[in-house]
């Protein structure tokens, strides 16, 4: 028996009121926890899907272009300076930035051309593993190249050259097998042949040489400018270009989901807290007689204040404990309904559980501060005479 006995027994005295209050507060906590879990999973899922949509940073050499014309006859543009650069060094430099964990793919590329069946066609050398992270939307008839001497043909190129899966083509002195035909993407990939980077470098005698690197950065939680600056710091002689509109759109989509969830959570928590505050306020009026008894027995104001705060604290801890577990369970159901359950990576975190219980308890105590203060201000005679 101590001062905690008083709020504990009081909660038991009106079980339905306590249960109802707990239910409403726990419902609020459940909504917040499930919203947080769902928004995180949906955000990650969105990031993954958006990343699959393409690269957002371009790493290319600084090349000056000179327009060549003479006597009214235009010869076209001429690139001045070194166009090739080392693939390994560049990829390693990009991967070495501080925000490397935000890089989803670093895809180097070599661009060349070849004459096949009398037609000149572009040939692109790619690192298949990195390339497919960026081009996850590709679909092929046949299969993706498995060996170095296999390539993919874009839909338009294959049609023009009369290629189909299983055919062979000669590039320089080497023969490549067409592993698959890329279904139409509506982009540049339709018009070219795409081969393994190492094999193509060997074919054209440009070992470790590349023309540019496409980087796909996940930027829901970081400004793209920071990544660009860090890459520029590693590769000062290169031109690093952020494709801002793509990045901004991605960042907006991901952060919108999270911000919306946060605002809704805040409203739910404020409503639940207001309800705790109102209930405690009415409890103070109901329990004036008790307050009078306690004060007439010599209880200090701070002890009366503590009794009401402890009651709110207990409700908060219980609501946090029940609400978190319920929210955790509800998250899976919501993700199932949203059809993103396959992307779910929700882990029950005991530390987070304890923190949520603590935070909700603090919130409940904060909501009860004014009622508890009012209770502590009641004079014993006022309380006893009012009855």
């Amino acid at each position, binding site marked *: *028996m*101590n*001062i*905690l*006995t*008083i709020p504990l*027994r*009081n909660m*038991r*005295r009106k079980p339905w009121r306590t249960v109802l209050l707990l239910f409403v507060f726990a419902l609020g906590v459940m909504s917040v926890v499930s919203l947080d879990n769902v928004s995180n999973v949906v955000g990650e899922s969105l990031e993954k899907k958006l990343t699959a949509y393409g690269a957002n940073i371009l790493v290319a050499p600084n090349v000056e272009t000179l327009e060549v014309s003479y006597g009214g006859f235009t010869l076209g543009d001429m690139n001045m300076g070194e166009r090739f650069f080392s693939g390994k060094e560049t990829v390693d430099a990009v991967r070495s930035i501080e925000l490397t964990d935000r890089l989803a793919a670093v895809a180097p590329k070599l661009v060349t051309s070849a004459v096949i069946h009398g037609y000149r066609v572009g040939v692109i050398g790619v690192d298949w593993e990195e390339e497919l992270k960026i081009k996850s939307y590709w679909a092929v008839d046949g299969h993706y190249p498995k060996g170095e001497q296999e390539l993919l043909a874009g839909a338009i190129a294959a049609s023009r050259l009369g290629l189909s899966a299983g055919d062979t083509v000669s590039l320089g002195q080497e023969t490549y097998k067409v592993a698959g035909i890329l279904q139409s993407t509506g982009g540049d990939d339709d018009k070219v042949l795409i081969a393994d980077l190492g094999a193509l470098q060997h074919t054209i005698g440009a070992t470790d040489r590349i023309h540019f690197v496409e980087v796909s950065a996940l930027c829901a939680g970081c400004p793209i400018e920071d990544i660009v600056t860090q890459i520029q710091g590693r590769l000062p002689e290169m031109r690093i270009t952020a494709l801002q509109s793509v990045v901004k759109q991605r960042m907006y989509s991901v952060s919108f989901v999270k911000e919306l969830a946060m605002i809704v959570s805040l409203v739910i928590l404020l409503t639940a807290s207001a309800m705790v505050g109102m209930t405690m306020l009415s409890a103070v009026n109901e329990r004036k*007689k*008790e307050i*009078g*008894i*306690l004060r*007439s*027995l*010599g*209880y*200090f*104001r701070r*002890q009366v204040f503590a009794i009401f705060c402890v009651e709110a604290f207990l409700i908060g801890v219980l609501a946090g404990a029940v609400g978190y577990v319920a929210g955790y369970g509800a998250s899976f159901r919501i993700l199932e309904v949203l059809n993103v359950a396959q992307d779910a990576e929700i882990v029950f975190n005991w530390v987070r559980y304890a923190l949520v219980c603590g935070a909700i308890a603090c919130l409940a105590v904060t909501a009860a501060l004014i009622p508890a203060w009012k209770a502590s201000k009641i*004079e*014993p*005679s006022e309380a*006893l*005479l009012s*009855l």
Partner: protein
Amino acid sequence: MLKAENISKTFYGEGTPARALDSVSIAVDEGEFVSIVGRSGSGKTTLLHILSTLQTPDSGELTYGGTDLGRISERELNMMRHHDFAVIFQFHHLLPYLTVLENTLLPFMNTLRPVSSGHVEEAKQCLKRVGLDDKWNRLPSMLSGGEQQRVAIARALVKKARYLFADEPTGSLDKTTGKEILTLLQELNREGLAVVMVTHDHQYAAYADTIVEMEDGAVKSVHTE
């Protein structure tokens, strides 16, 4: 000694101000039994509340053991209320969700420190003293009015109060039970507890050593045995 000198109190309600006490002086020695009688509105309950420090007077001086209670801090007043004074009311005023034993021990349940086993034993002895030794685990709702009043008296006994202030302690009880409570108060008074009781019943007032009669907020007469 508890001494009130020239105590006045006016209540300001919605209508005209009502003067509840007008320059009342009264002294209660330790171990004395004083009854305050009078009609409704005579000011007897207000006087009891001021004597028990539940209310403060507008003017006048209240002293206890020579200390002016109007000049001490709220903390000191609380400590004094906690150790030396106990109040019982017409409607018993027990916490309905605490057992008889817990209600008796309420004065010691004001901190996080658990009530000592010594205090628990004392509380059980006090309950036995008031005839409730077999009901300490019951809730107030399971007791009769007289029994609830006995719990309130046991609560006063367990903290070894020097003064017991009783506001119409028999007001909600039948005659037989009322007499039992008065007999108990008389016994406790003989053991050294000072009792100040407000009643409108002259028959009950006769249990006291001193009867103070009040009328219109003033002391009309004082009779001592």
